[in-house]
């Protein structure tokens, strides 16, 4: 595999990326998005850029190939040099053969419609001669293991395959540097794994420098050489992954566990953490042996124990037991000729958070929409226990009545917003649900305090938009709420807020179902986990059992502490304190 730069490389002083005192300010913004950033990225490094939503991660990544400010506007002071070329004088298109850029949604960046043509597109723009083009496309097809997909229409590929094609499409130009903006945020764990494994291979086999941003650090920080942390005020700190992680506010669970336990050196991977955790595991095993009763129940129950008393297992064919808010029997959904959901029996109980997991296309969204009644089902029954105590089929209700029984927050939540200010959205929501004026705003302030009334909903961060949509859906006071991929684009603090909120709703007796790919989020909210595959439910049980038993879905803490059945750091803490101060 001989991929090397297509253009003469200026010797020395041409590290892949040099940021020299870079400050970037957008027009109309009071503070710079990036403040005096200075760093050098070396050959063959895997660099993770992290920071809170809106902190300037994308600005930093965009500045690497000149998209900022050439394409986005804004003012850049200082100097960015990429392989010896100054982005001041080189537009993104002039850097195409040294920097490859891959974005979050691969489909949005595709110009052609089949894999092979997409791989060739960059080369066509670079005017490579056809034989060389042909050879490079074949090389990249093999390198990424997508040769059998060469004629496939891009739209028909899975998310992970699409993202690998997107990487391949910039790799054909033999860049020295890959820049990826949240490449895995739309992918299921398997797809994300594929993409990250590919990236790590490119770094190791080809010596490519890879810079990527990622909210879910647990996926990538173990293989990263260096971490760049963009703070909220735009300042940038960078260093070896282990050094930055020792104090970074945003860190994956394994790092939090390591910090809590005081392990030195700080483990970043499951492997290192398991080696360091030998004593901790022994302590925990000893403590669970001495006091099995309380410790066991603490471990198996999730933080809000409200749902426990109401767990009813039997679902007879007659009228469902009390507490079963939503009941589906023999539910089937087809899209054209494709069966998305196949004879699913499911009940959602009051006071319980059920998390739906499974790979992309497993039928999670279809199931949620069919339970909600807005999308048609092809067979089966769905009933929701109405406030009046009767069971109704949501599909036969009018949309207005339906949302007072059951609410749904779709995958692209901002679709629900169409007015020009937060104030107008809240008023409209009060109006359409008949809630008393100010009710939606009050809910919103509880979920995400301090969102200004006059802001445009589109200008809010992902977390704030989600909070607004949730407040709107909750205005109708449904007893059941379904959420489809609510954590997309949320950083750790925003996910923690969302998790707390869902637990509160459940504690107040709502029945909740959340479809998510985010294992760590599932570990924080789930009472019960349902795993779907090819439209069928393949596992359904208490969160601890399902999550701990599956290697794919086990959260990091569970992987480190197996065979102990602990999902989160707070469970570890309470398991130890339960036996009055176990030593670390």
């Amino acid at each position: 595999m001989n991929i090397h730069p297509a253009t003469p490389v200026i010797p020395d002083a041409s590290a892949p990326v040099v940021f020299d005192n870079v400050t970037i300010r957008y027009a109309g913004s009071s503070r710079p998005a990036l403040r005096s950033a200075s760093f050098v990225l070396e050959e063959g490094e895997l660099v993770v850029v992290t920071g809170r939503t809106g902190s300037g991660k994308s600005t930093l990544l965009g500045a690497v190939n000149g998209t900022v400010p050439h394409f986005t506007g804004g003012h850049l002071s200082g100097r960015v040099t990429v392989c010896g070329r100054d982005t001041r004088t080189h537009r993104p298109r002039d850097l195409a053969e040294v920097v490859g850029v891959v974005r979050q949604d691969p489909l949005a960046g595709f110009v052609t419609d089949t894999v092979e043509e997409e791989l060739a597109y960059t080369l066509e723009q670079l005017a490579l001669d056809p034989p060389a083009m042909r050879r490079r496309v074949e090389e990249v097809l093999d390198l990424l293991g997508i040769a059998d997909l060469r004629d496939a229409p891009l739209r028909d590929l899975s998310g992970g395959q699409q993202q690998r094609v997107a990487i391949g499409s910039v790799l054909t130009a033999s860049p020295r540097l890959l820049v990826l903006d949240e490449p895995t945020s739309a992918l299921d764990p398997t797809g994300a794994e594929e993409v990250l494994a590919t990236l790590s291979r490119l770094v190791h086999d080809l010596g490519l420098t890879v810079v990527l941003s990622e909210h879910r650090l647990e996926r990538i920080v173990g293989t990263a050489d260096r971490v760049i942390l963009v703070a909220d005020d735009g300042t940038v700190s960078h260093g070896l992954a282990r050094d930055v992680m020792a104090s970074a506010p945003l860190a994956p669970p394994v790092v939090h566990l390591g910090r809590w336990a005081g392990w030195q050196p700080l483990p970043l991977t499951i492997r290192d953490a398991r080696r360091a955790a030998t004593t901790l595991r022994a302590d925990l095993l000893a403590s669970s042996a001495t006091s099995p009763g309380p410790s066991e129940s603490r471990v198996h129950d999730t933080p809000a124990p409200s749902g426990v008393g109401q767990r009813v297992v039997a679902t007879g064919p007659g009228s469902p037991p009390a507490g079963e808010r939503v009941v589906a029997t023999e539910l089937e959904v087809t899209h054209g000729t494709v069966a998305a959901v196949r004879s699913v029996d499911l009940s959602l109980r009051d006071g319980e958070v059920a998390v739906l997991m499974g790979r992309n296309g497993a039928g999670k969204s279809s199931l949620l929409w069919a339970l909600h009644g807005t999308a048609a089902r092809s067979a089966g029954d769905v009933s929701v226990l109405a406030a009046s105590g009767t069971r109704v089929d949501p599909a036969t209700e009018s949309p207005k009545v339906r949302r007072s029984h059951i609410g749904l927050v779709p995958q692209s939540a901002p679709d629900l917003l169409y007015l020009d200010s937060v104030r107008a959205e809240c008023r409209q929501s009060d109006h359409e649900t008949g809630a008393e004026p100010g009710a939606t705003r009050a809910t919103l302030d509880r979920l995400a305090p301090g969102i200004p009334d006059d802001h445009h909903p589109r200008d809010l961060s992902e977390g704030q938009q989600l909070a607004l949509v949730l407040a709107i859906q909750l205005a109708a006071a449904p007893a059941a709420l379904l959420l489809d991929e609510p954590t997309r684009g949320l950083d750790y603090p925003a996910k923690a807020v969302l998790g707390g909120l869902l637990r509160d709703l459940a504690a107040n007796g709502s029945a909740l179902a959340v479809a998510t790919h985010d294992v760590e989020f599932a570990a924080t909210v789930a009472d019960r986990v349902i795993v779907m595959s090819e439209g069928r439910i393949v596992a359904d049980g208490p969160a601890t059992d399902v999550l701990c038993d599956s290697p794919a879905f086990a959260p990091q803490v569970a992987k480190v502490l197996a065979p102990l059945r602990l999902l989160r750091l707070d469970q570890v803490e309470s398991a130890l304190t339960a036996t009055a101060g176990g030593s670390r």
Partner: protein
Amino acid sequence: MRAAGTPLSRHLHPVAWWVWAIGLAVACSRTNNPLLLLLAVSVASLVVAAKRGSSPWARAFRLYLVLGAFIIVLRVALHVLVGYKFGTMKLYTLPSVELPGITLLGPLYLEGILAAAAEGLRLASLIACIGAANALANPKRLLRALPSALHEIGTAVVISVTVAPQLAESVQRVRRARVLRGEGGAGIRSVGRVALPVLQDTLDRSLALASAMDSRGYGRRTAQSTSSRRLTGALTLTGLLGAGIGMYGLLDGTAPTLIGMPMLVLGLALSAIGMRVGGRSVQRSVYRPDPWGLPEWLVAGSGVVAAVLMVVQAGHAPDSLALPVQPLAAPALPLLAVLGILVAALPTFVAPDPPVARRDGTR
């Protein structure tokens, strides 16, 4: 050049499909004989059914047929509403509304309705021909065959082509979201509520795509002098204008012959020179360009033959190409025209099958 017979499966050159379809469309435009028109639509459908690929637009041919049917209905409805009513076989009398210079509704005659339907059918068959070309020739591959001076316009067209299905997707998604907020999703008021998120979505996508293309080297070109740019623009524009007028003259049987073929040739020649001049500054190469072989010649030729035979027939016996309505009679079946349209079915046998996309490993 590969011999006809059992060609390997590959994409036929998109220009060949378009020449074939335009030939058939020219033939259709010269007649309102329903027998010939239906024959032409059947031939187009036959070829599409035999040779279309698996791409989304290949599946869209049915939409063009539906659109055609709608046009026939619309044409008849317009005739009923405002058309000039003529004939002897009265079917039904609607109350007529006299307005200055125009009569709405009124008595309906079989002849008038049939003539209107035949006119509608002619338009529908033109649309079917264009639809066939669209279904058979991947529009994106067609644009790859464009001269490099038009490359950037071509890319713009490709993007607008992809925007349409995405737009439909967005509209559907947003409408479902509106239902989640308790609205029926119908009615004029909901249009604005759907439009804003959809527009936002489209804008975001466009920006994302533009940025992606920019960072992949799109639009790299060597500097070009102002005079050369102006020359390119003038030549291309005049040429295209000439070609447009020429095409109009060719399609409209009543136009003077001078603004037919000669104008078209002149226009195309001017455009070609302009593109040659402009293309010099574009540095770009084409990956696996579509070859032009014997099947391409045969497919394009079959369309041209259909057009030529129809024009010849029109020269010999123009009456045979019209639906006789005064008095009403069965339409004739002119041999030459029928032969021409049947020749247009040749691609069913000579065009290579489109490659089947391998889907193993995809979801």
